[in-house]
């Protein structure tokens, strides 16, 4: 009767194993191949699933408790923000355009990751990995939802956030995000895991959710920032899962190495091609600046990735094929992006502007190799145009890369004079790419990428013989974006005048009594 009185409390590792292992069984009434129909089609071989374990050893009880602690803190802050008109406490209403971009880009992206990870979570045969993946899938939903909640107050008072789902589906400038998300969602369960946990979360997510969030905090955003920091704590677990998964796959079978390398190359590059927006968020859209995109890249990408791949070399993995090109772009990315968005300012759902003189000086100090030579002249030109009452508008339809769907605005690595163009003939059609890496991605899976629907092509197909000069703007107006109110020049916009009217800004003037 008393034989089980003395129960020692299990240590973390033992507890995790006891609660995770052996829930699964080998089915016999239905074949395992039918229960896990996508386990083999990608060609990945796993011989012993028990060799992978969650580095954080997460069990549901701990997870609920911990996440609940985070949520109670976060939502208390969000409630306070709403109650106290926190939206007028940001440095400058230009900053709110960063919030708009985050809502337009990162909430839909996180949602896409959530559903895609559910697919992996159902189909990967290893039980410990499935549990970690399910936790990840839930947390991506968390991030999508809390971004919406954090932006909710801003939406009430500022323009450019009111119908994101429609814009995400169809707006030309959000196509790089949608095509990335769709590429993920259409991939198999193994590729998906490598792409998200390792490619995006490990290699690149820190740049948005750490230094940019810190800069946003400096600009008084007490809504998006706590949400961003809190979500990144979940992402640390995703990253560890991703790194350990890659090592596990490489160790399980040498035949996996080539496949994993191809995925790392592809998803590093596709993730990198989402970075222009992050780069310009940090260099152009936070009025009170903390550090530059280049510094963020050095701290949060270049150094950690070098360290990580030094270790992975022992497993047979090489740095991603586009690594050199990506590092070479650090002097240029934010500026090229801002220039493009400024020129297309009439066809976006957020405002753009020419930075003020001390901002230009800051950019010069941070980018001594590139800013004065390549980018200040353009910004000065825009300022002149504005002063003359004729804001610069780029009326041409952008040529988009068939793979990443970015407009062709990136220059040849190491030579800022030339836009990088590549072209491939495939089954009697010409396809265009922004880089060697996108061209290679296409070459590896042409049947996939020929399916893509490029916004510029759609406009050309429907506009017939009419001029395409205003077609891009019209395509945005069709989605419920109010031209001039929701986009175009920031100075003099409704956002700008309202913010002044409300006495907004971190240097708020006292009411005159």
């Amino acid at each position, binding site marked *: 009767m008393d034989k089980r009185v003395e*129960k020692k409390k299990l240590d973390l590792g033992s507890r995790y194993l006891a*609660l995770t292992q052996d*829930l699964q*069984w080998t089915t016999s*009434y239905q074949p395992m191949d039918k229960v896990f129909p996508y386990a083999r089609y990608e060609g990945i071989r796993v011989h012993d699933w028990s060799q992978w374990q969650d580095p954080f050893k997460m069990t549901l009880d701990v997870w609920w408790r911990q996440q609940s602690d985070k*949520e109670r803190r976060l939502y208390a802050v969000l409630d306070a923000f709403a109650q106290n008109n926190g939206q007028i406490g940001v440095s400058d209403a230009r900053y709110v355009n960063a919030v708009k971009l985050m809502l337009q880009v990162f909430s839909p992206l996180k949602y896409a990751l959530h559903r895609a990870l559910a*697919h992996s979570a159902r189909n990967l045969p290893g039980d410990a990995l499935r549990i970690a993946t399910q936790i990840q899938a839930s947390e991506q939903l968390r991030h999508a939802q809390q971004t919406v909640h954090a932006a909710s107050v801003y939406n009430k008072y500022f*323009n450019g956030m*009111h119908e994101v789902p429609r814009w995400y589906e169809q707006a030309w400038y959000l196509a790089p995000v949608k095509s990335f998300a769709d590429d993920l969602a259409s991939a198999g369960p193994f590729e998906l895991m490598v792409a998200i946990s390792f490619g995006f979360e490990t290699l690149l997510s820190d740049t948005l959710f750490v230094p940019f969030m810190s800069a946003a905090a400096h600009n008084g955003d007490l809504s998006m920032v706590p949400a961003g920091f809190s979500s990144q704590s979940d992402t640390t677990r995703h990253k560890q899962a991703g790194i350990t998964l890659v090592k596990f796959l490489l160790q399980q079978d040498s035949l996996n190495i080539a496949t994993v390398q191809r995925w790392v190359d592809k998803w590093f590059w596709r993730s990198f091609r989402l970075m222009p927006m992050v780069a310009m968020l940090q260099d152009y859209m936070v009025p009170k600046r903390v550090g530059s995109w280049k510094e963020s890249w050095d701290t949060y990408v270049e150094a950690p990735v070098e360290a990580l791949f030094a270790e992975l070399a022992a497993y047979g993995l090489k740095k991603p094929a586009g690594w050199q090109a990506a590092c070479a772009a650090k002097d240029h990315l934010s500026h090229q992006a801002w220039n493009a968005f400024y020129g297309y300012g009439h066809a976006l759902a957020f405002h753009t502007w020419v930075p003020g003189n001390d901002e230009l000086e800051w950019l010069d100090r941070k980018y001594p190799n590139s800013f004065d030579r390549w980018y200040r002249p353009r910004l000065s030109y825009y300022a002149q145009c504005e002063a003359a009452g004729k804001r610069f508008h780029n009326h041409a339809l952008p040529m988009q890369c068939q793979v990443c769907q970015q407009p062709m605005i990136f220059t040849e690595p190491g030579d800022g004079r030339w836009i990088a163009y590549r072209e491939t003939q495939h089954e009697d059609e010409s396809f265009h790419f922004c880089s060697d890496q996108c061209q290679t991605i296409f070459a590896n899976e042409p049947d996939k990428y020929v399916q893509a629907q490029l916004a510029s092509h759609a406009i050309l197909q429907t506009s017939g013989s009419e001029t395409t000069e205003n077609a891009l703007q019209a395509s945005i107006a069709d989605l419920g974006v109010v031209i001039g109110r929701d986009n175009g020049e920031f100075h003099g916009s409704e956002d700008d005048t309202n913010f002044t009217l409300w006495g907004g800004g971190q240097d708020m003037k006292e009411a005159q009594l």
Partner: protein
Amino acid sequence: MSSIDLQTKEIKPARNTFTHVARHIGGDKPASRYQEATIGLQPTQNFHYRPTWDPAHEIFDASRSAIKLADWYVLKDPRQYYYANWTITRARQHEAVEANYSFVDSRGLLSRMTDEVRESACKVLMPLRHVAWAGNMNNTYICAYGYGTAITAPCNFHAMDHLGIAQYLTRFGLAVDDPGVLDAGKNDWLNDPRWQVLRRLVEDTLVMKDPMEMFVAQNLALDGLLYPLIYGSFVDEHLTLKGGTAVAMLTSFMPEWHDECARWVDAVVKACAAESDENKQLMTTWIQAWADRAQAALAPVAEIALGEHGQEALAEVRTTFNARIAKIGITL
């Protein structure tokens, strides 16, 4: 300065909520966090690539189910769960479980548990770890392949809940017995003839394709009979009479959870059936078929649990279930 003009800075909102939410809730009025976190989150068109794993469908594709809805956001969750309030609720419930474990432990109720109660509880509850695991896999399936955030998000939560239950059952076994009890349970699940009808049923659910039929089979038909039978008839009514109150305390999460979720499950089924005669017919056929199968599969389990009273208990559970279905507006 002559007259003092107190200018109240009126900071008026330009809108109450997002346009796509307003469209759904009947106009631009303040929306709840549930509404803003749910409506419109899933893209519906302009997908760039077909899934390599299912090229016959789009990435998100309503045609994966035979259920047809003009607007998949009618499948509202009456609990209004989004991630934050769901996890806060579960954490609170978990604190109650921890408190029960402390209580049971400190009062020596575990050490004083009779062999009869211990063995009886473990014989029934340990194989159910695997049933919960399948519930986790199936709800993950619905999250992956269902249509619209209104149904896929709560199924994600539901999947995690099943995993939580599997872990609670494991913890129970380890608390009252040696680790070998888990292996014994798995062995029964795989080999004991009395568990095989249920295992066959469960494995059949694991290979289903229609996410809404899976919802009915797993969340309504199977769980709708299993939970009342095990935690109602067996644990609450039978084991406690034999001195097994500790078992009820340590598994208290399960019946409470089931009752909470039943409101959601019923609302989903009701909304589907209300839309059209075709949907109602589908729901009726599915519920009838899967409830009958589940009842047959649980008959030998009821015998393990309740001996000669098993069939009577199971019949009562089925009667209650039928009444529940009638309340949703479906006649079996």
